[in-house]
């Protein structure tokens, strides 16, 4: 189900306030968890926070606030491709540095 064309705007299928407030609460809780993990003086926990909690927060914003969850497949593929290109760039740069 998509959401932004003129005719669809007239439909009642608008995601309500409650969903977004719940997502915001989750983001606040995750931020608290991230700060908690990083102040535990344990490098492994801090890394866990960086590699798990941070991308989870970004995904929540991407899927709910940026509405990607409700978009059609075409746009989802585009976003996935763009993110994949970014990950490949990061991977190639680091592998070049590490195995030089």
């Amino acid at each position: 189900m998509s959401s932004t064309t003129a005719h669809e705007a007239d439909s009642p299928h608008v995601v309500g306030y409650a969903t977004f407030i719940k997502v915001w609460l989750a983001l606040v809780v995750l931020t608290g968890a991230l700060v908690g993990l990083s102040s535990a003086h344990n490098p492994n926990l801090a890394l866990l926070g960086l590699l798990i909690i941070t991308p989870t927060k970004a995904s929540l914003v991407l899927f709910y606030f940026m509405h990607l969850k409700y978009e059609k497949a075409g746009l989802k593929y585009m976003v996935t491709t763009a993110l994949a290109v970014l990950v490949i760039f990061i991977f190639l740069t680091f592998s070049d540095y590490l195995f030089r």
Partner: protein
Amino acid sequence: MSESAEPHTGDPIGEHVTEHAGEHRDYVGAKLGMWIFVFTELILFGGLFVAYGMYRSMHPHEFHHASGELNVTLGVINTLILLTSSLTMVLSIVAIRLQRKGQSIAFLAATMVLGCAFLVNKFFEWSAKIHHGLYPGSEHLMARPPGERLFFGLYYGMTGLHGLHVTVGVVVMSIMMALLVRDKIRHDDFIKLENTGLYWHLVDIIWIFLLPLFYLAA
């Protein structure tokens, strides 16, 4: 309008170009354009994150030490401000779609106030650092190890570029506010507000990554 004036979009997303009283609207095109801009921003900041990762792997201890000098409380407060502003932004869009213009204006105003609050915090944070002689090229910083100089260079560069994006966001929102008040953004025509939201959430996502990399890296 002739047939040739309105080409078939052939868009992969399968939505339509619409005509309203002779006004040409292409919601999918408008949104797609905004997403492509978002991708270019991802590559821009992605490059900076790669630079950060590379220099941090070269100078892990110096980055760790320098990060300890940043104000974690201010960083977390600014995170909460931006997360809340993202919520009010999305609620402003929901409100206009539900034909609640007053609420939409109120939520957009709240988003602008929060964006400004973020910048005020940033101003105090940078002022304190500069007051302590920690700014690119300062005598105090140049006397410190290369890794710490790199850390503060990246800190000013990346949070500065992000702050510039927040400033642009607030300016764009003030334009959206004028359009909303004059009924140029309505429940059946809100793509400009939605695209502003996409930009604002991108700014939020970038900050989500800046927080652990700079403020919590110690």
